[in-house]
C-alpha cells in the first residue's frame, strides 16, 4: 500500500510530540517529582515518606500476578490477587504508629458488636478515619462518635455542660475538644485528666485545624511515630 505525504508541518508536530513524551518520561523517573504521581496530597507528617514506605510489593512476580488474575477472571481461581503493590493494611500503619495507650484499638473496633459501624465507617481499619492522599489528618466526620456513644451516660458527671445535655443536643463536634480519640496526647488540665469546661477545652477551630492540615492543637504527643526519620 502506498504511503501519503507526511508534510513538514506534520513531521514538526509529531517531533514536538516525541519531545513532550521524553520530557514526561523524565518527569516520571525523576525521584524528587514522585509526589506528582500520588493520588492526592500527603497526610500532614507524611510529606517526606517515599511511596514504598506504605506501598509494599504484592506477593509473586508480575508474570505470576498476571497469570493468577487471568485465572480469576476466567473462573479458575476463587480470589483475585494484587498486581504490583499489595493493598495498604493497618499493619503498615502500625509499623510507625504504635499505640500502647490506645483507647480505640482496632482489636476492639473489629469486634462483632461493632458490625454496623464497621460497615458504615470501616472503623476496623486505620483507613476508616485516616485515608491517605487527602492532605488532612482525619477524613472521618467528628460525628462518628455518635455511632457508639449516643446512648452513653456518665455518673456524677463533673463537666459543664454535662455529657447528657451535649448528647441530647447532638453536639458531637465537641467530643474531640476534650477527648483525644487515640489517647496519644496529654490533655490534662491541672489535677484533671480532661478539661472540665468547654472554656478550658481545645477550641473548635483548634480541633478543625488538628484534624485537618493545620497546627496540632492537642498537648504533647505521648508516643511519636517511629521510623519517620529513617525514611526520606
Amino acid at each position, binding site marked *: *500500500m*502506498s*504511503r*501519503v*505525504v*507526511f*508534510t*513538514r*508541518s*506534520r*513531521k*514538526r*508536530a*509529531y517531533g*514536538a*510530540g*516525541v519531545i*513532550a*513524551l521524553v520530557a*514526561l*518520561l523524565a*518527569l*516520571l523517573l525523576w525521584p524528587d517529582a514522585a*509526589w*506528582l*504521581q*500520588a*493520588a*492526592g*496530597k500527603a497526610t500532614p507528617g507524611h510529606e517526606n515518606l517515599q511511596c514504598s514506605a506504605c*506501598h509494599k510489593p504484592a506477593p509473586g512476580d508480575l508474570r505470576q500476578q498476571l497469570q493468577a488474575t487471568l485465572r480469576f477472571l476466567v473462573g479458575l481461581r476463587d480470589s483475585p490477587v*494484587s*498486581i*504490583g*503493590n*499489595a*493493598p*495498604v*493494611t*493497618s499493619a503498615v500503619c502500625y509499623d510507625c504508629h504504635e499505640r500502647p495507650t490506645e483507647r480505640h484499638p482496632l482489636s476492639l473496633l473489629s469486634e462483632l458488636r461493632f458490625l454496623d459501624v464497621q460497615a458504615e465507617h*470501616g472503623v476496623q*481499619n486505620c*483507613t476508616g478515619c485516616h*485515608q*491517605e*492522599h487527602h492532605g488532612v489528618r482525619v477524613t472521618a466526620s467528628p460525628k462518628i462518635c455518635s455511632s457508639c456513644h449516643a446512648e452513653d451516660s456518665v455518673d456524677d458527671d463533673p463537666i459543664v455542660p454535662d455529657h447528657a445535655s451535649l448528647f441530647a443536643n447532638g453536639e458531637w463536634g465537641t467530643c474531640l475538644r476534650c477527648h483525644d480519640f487515640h489517647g496519644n496526647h496529654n490533655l490534662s488540665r491541672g489535677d484533671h485528666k480532661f478539661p472540665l469546661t468547654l472554656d478550658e477545652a481545645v477550641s473548635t477551630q483548634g480541633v478543625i485545624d488538628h484534624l485537618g492540615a493545620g497546627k496540632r492543637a492537642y498537648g504533647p504527643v505521648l508516643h511519636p511515630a517511629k521510623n519517620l526519620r529513617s525514611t526520606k
Partner: protein
Amino acid sequence: MAAGCSAADELSARTGAASYCGACIQELTTLTGDPGGTPVLVSIERLDSDLMVVTLKRAGGEDFLQRHVAGGHVVLSLKDEMGWVSRPYTITSSPESVDHRVLVVRCLVGGRMGRALAECGSDSVARVSAPRGDAFVRLSRRRATVFLVAGVGVTPALAALRAGSGPRVALVHACFRDKEPGLTRLLAGACAQRSVPVVVRDCDALGRPSATDFTILANRYPGVDWYLCGPEGYVEVVRIGLRAAGVSSDRVHTEYFVASSSPSDPPAARSRTRAEGYWAKTGLSLVAAWCIWALLPTYKVWHEWQSSDVWRTVTGLVLVSFIAWQWFFPAVRKRRGGVAARRLELWHRAIGALSPIALLLHQRDLAYGLLCALSLLFVANTLVGCFDKTCIVDGSRRERYMQFWLPIHVVISCLVTALSVWHIIMVVTYQGTAS
C-alpha cells in the same frame, strides 16, 4: 431543458456550464439523466496502486471528430448502479492522436468513478464528451512555463509535454508520494521525448518544497510563467512560497486538484460544514460544563455512583476507547491518505467534542498532580480541537494556522495518551487500602 436539451453535453453547450473546468458536470448529468457524448471503448492499465491510465477509443473504431487543444479535458461517463457517473479529466495524449484519447485517473477510496472503472471489464462501453476547455489559455506562448505539480496534478504537465502546440515547458518539478513509480515513469518518458528537465521530489522523505527551494527556482527561472497543479494544500504552499521568493502573482497560474462531486455531494458538503460548526459548538458547551463542574463544589454529589469499581472501570474503558479511536484518524491519514482520512474527520471531530461527557462520568474530582494535569490536558485538547482549521476560511491563512495549531494538538494528544497509560498502570498496581 425547456429549450429541448435532453443530455448533459447539450445542456453544457447551451448554457456554458461545465465548459471551463468541468467540475459541475455531474450536476448536469444528474439533472438530465443522460450524459450525452460519444460511446467509447475503455481499456485500463494500472499505473500505481490507485492510479490508472484509461485509453478511450470510439466504439466503431473511427477517429474522434474533434481534436483537443493542449490542456483541454473531456468528461468521461460510466454507468453504475446509481446511474451515470461523470467526471472531467485532462487529456494527456497528444492532440495529434485522434484515434484515441488517454486520461490518467486517480481512484479515490470509495469514489464512484474509481469503483465504476474497477468494475468495468476491458473494452467496456462508456461515453465521452467532446473536448472542452483550455487550462493553458492564460499562459503566454512566448514565455516558457515551469510546472510545479503534485500527485495526479501532473496531468496538465503531461498534456503540455505531449502537445506540439502547447506551452513551452522549461521544467517540470513534481512532488510524488514515495516517488509513485508509475507516475514517475510516465513523466520521465514524456520529459525525455521533449528534452525537458524534470525534478521528482519524494515528498514522503523530503516533505513539501521549502522556502529555499522556491528561492532557487525563482532565481534559476526568471521571467517564466508558473503553472501549479495538485491538491489544494500543496498549491497554496507553493503559491505562498513563490510569492515570498519574489515571483509576481500574475505569472502564477493555479489549478486545484480536488475530488469531484457526486450527485449528493453539494448538499452533503453543506451539511458537513454545518456539522463541523455544530460539533465545535457542542464541544465548547461541554468544555464550559466541565469547567463549571470543576469550579463548583456541588460536583461532589456525583460521588455515590461514581465510586464503584465497576462504574469506574467501564467509564475508564470508554475513555481508553475514545483515545484509541482518535489516534485511528491520523493513522488512516498516514497510511491511506487525506481523502480516506477526510471520511473519518467528522467522526474524529464529533467524538472529540463529546469526550468531556465521558470524562465527567469517570472523574470524581479534579485530582492531584499528574492526574489533575491529565484531566486539564484532556479538556484543553477538546478546546483546541474546537478551534481547528475549519475556523479559518482563507486557504493560505488556514495553512499558516495549521502550522501553529497542529503541533499544539499533537503534543497535547501525545501527553494525554501517555498520561492515560500511566494512570491505568497506577490504578492497577496501586490498589489503595485494604477493605
